């Protein structure tokens, strides 16, 4: 029995099947969470390294960082994934090794979304007001200390909404890793389909990803509230816990993207839209 009617008719037995298959589903969930977390970690490192390298005073560093970012943004995530999974093992010595599927997934996700995030980092650092840099020299802080104590804390608060959106993009993109034989959540839920039918299995899969996405939203909202509080631009987390459950792009002042579109400096820096996708 399939279709929308079957979905409701067989809901009870199907839920029992889910319970029966729970060990496999949990395995898949762990793989997805691991790929998503490690991918995001790699992406964050790449974002900061290549975001800051793009505003280096050395031309060579800037050019190399720019090429890296444009390369990984411009070639699709699926191509990168297939390249690591299929091409890399076929290259002559000293390459020609088969990476573990999880590593392939993490590398592709981290490199691709890291390149997008590098643009967010660059844009946010660029939108920290000039007066702050003047304040750094007025207080005779060293440039490095000024970067880490003055500029980055402010840029961090600016970049969190976009990074949050990118992290959700990364989670959604991670569902493609089952094509390179990584047994993630999507793969395990697909195994359900033979017995529960299409509607149940895929509704279950979408809901599971939706819940994980919300975990990301809540975590990132928390970080954003804290970051704003740390630079004196908002209440403490304990006073604004409701802010944790704010859907992305639905802030009272008209949505994050609205703020970004209005903020011309952010548009110029390429952070317009949800995390400056393209």
């Amino acid at each position, binding site marked *: 029995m399939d279709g929308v009617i079957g979905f409701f008719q067989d809901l009870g037995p199907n839920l029992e099947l889910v319970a029966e298959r729970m060990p496999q589903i949990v395995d898949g969930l762990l793989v997805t969470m691991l790929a998503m977390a490690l991918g995001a970690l790699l992406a964050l490192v790449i974002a900061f390294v290549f975001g800051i390298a793009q505003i280096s005073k050395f031309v060579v560093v800037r050019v190399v960082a720019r090429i890296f970012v444009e390369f990984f943004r411009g070639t699709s995530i*699926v191509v*990168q994934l297939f390249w690591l999974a299929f*091409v890399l093992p076929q290259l002559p010595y000293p390459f020609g090794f088969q990476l573990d599927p999880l590593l392939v997934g993490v590398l592709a996700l981290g490199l691709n979304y890291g390149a997008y995030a590098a643009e967010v980092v660059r844009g946010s650092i660029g939108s920290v007001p000039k007066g702050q840099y003047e304040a750094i020299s007025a207080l005779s802080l060293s440039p490095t200390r000024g970067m880490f104590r003055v500029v980055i804390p402010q840029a961090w608060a600016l970049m969190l909404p976009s990074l949050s959106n990118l992290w959700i993009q990364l989670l*959604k993109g991670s569902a*493609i890793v089952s094509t390179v034989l990584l047994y993630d959540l999507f793969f395990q839920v697909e195994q359900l389909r033979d017995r529960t039918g299409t509607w149940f299995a895929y509704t279950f899969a979408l809901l599971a*990803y939706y819940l994980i996405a919300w975990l990301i939203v809540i975590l990132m909202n928390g970080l954003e509230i804290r970051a704003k509080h740390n630079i004196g631009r908002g209440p403490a987390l304990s006073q604004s816990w409701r802010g944790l459950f704010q859907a992305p792009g639905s802030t009272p002042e008209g*949505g994050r993207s609205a703020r970004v579109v*209005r903020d011309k400096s952010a548009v110029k820096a*390429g952070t*317009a839209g949800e995390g400056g996708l393209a």
Partner: protein
Amino acid sequence: MTPSNSWWDWGYAAEALPVLFDGFKITLLATVLGTLIALVLGLVVAMVRRTAPAIINAPFTWLVEFIRMTPLVIQLVFANLALSPFVDSTLMIGIWVLGIHYTTYMAEVYRAGIDSVPKGQWEAATALSLPRVRTWRAVVVPQAIRNTLPALGNYAISMFKETPFFVVIYIPEMVRNAQTFGGDNFRYTEAITLAGLIFLLASYPTSLLIRRLEKKLA
């Protein structure tokens, strides 16, 4: 023809190119049609969310958010399995799913654009007692769209680079063709590398154009 055991075989690459270009046509078609769907439906969604009563708005908003926050890959496979008894063309299913997925992004962009139209414009429309439809068509939408053009362009490029997600429903777009070609010949290097380069060659100049547009509008 058996490819040589080297880094790169030009003859083999030349054989792969026509196969890739066949797929590229589908990639382009999907991008253009998907963008059109998202452009039109995105505006409709943004206007519904702005005007509909709360009882419709709440579930509708949730649905839009749900589509936006769940993987395109799963939506593609789901729609394909659920609709294939009724729809002949897998490509059309793929294009609609892609278009609807990006509708949810475009709707946010339009909403931001509509929000950024100054309040005085609405008041002026009321003062001139313009009918509601005319206020939207002649006052709000033209200004809203101008503010959102760069973001819309960015999403079109992003959609272009996400068409390879179609591999999960076996639509013969460029990356799927590269994969099949590589699999048939037990050699992936040339086909997949070229597919990546073609993406880069097509998307980078377009994103430069959009950046220029942004500067002009800013």
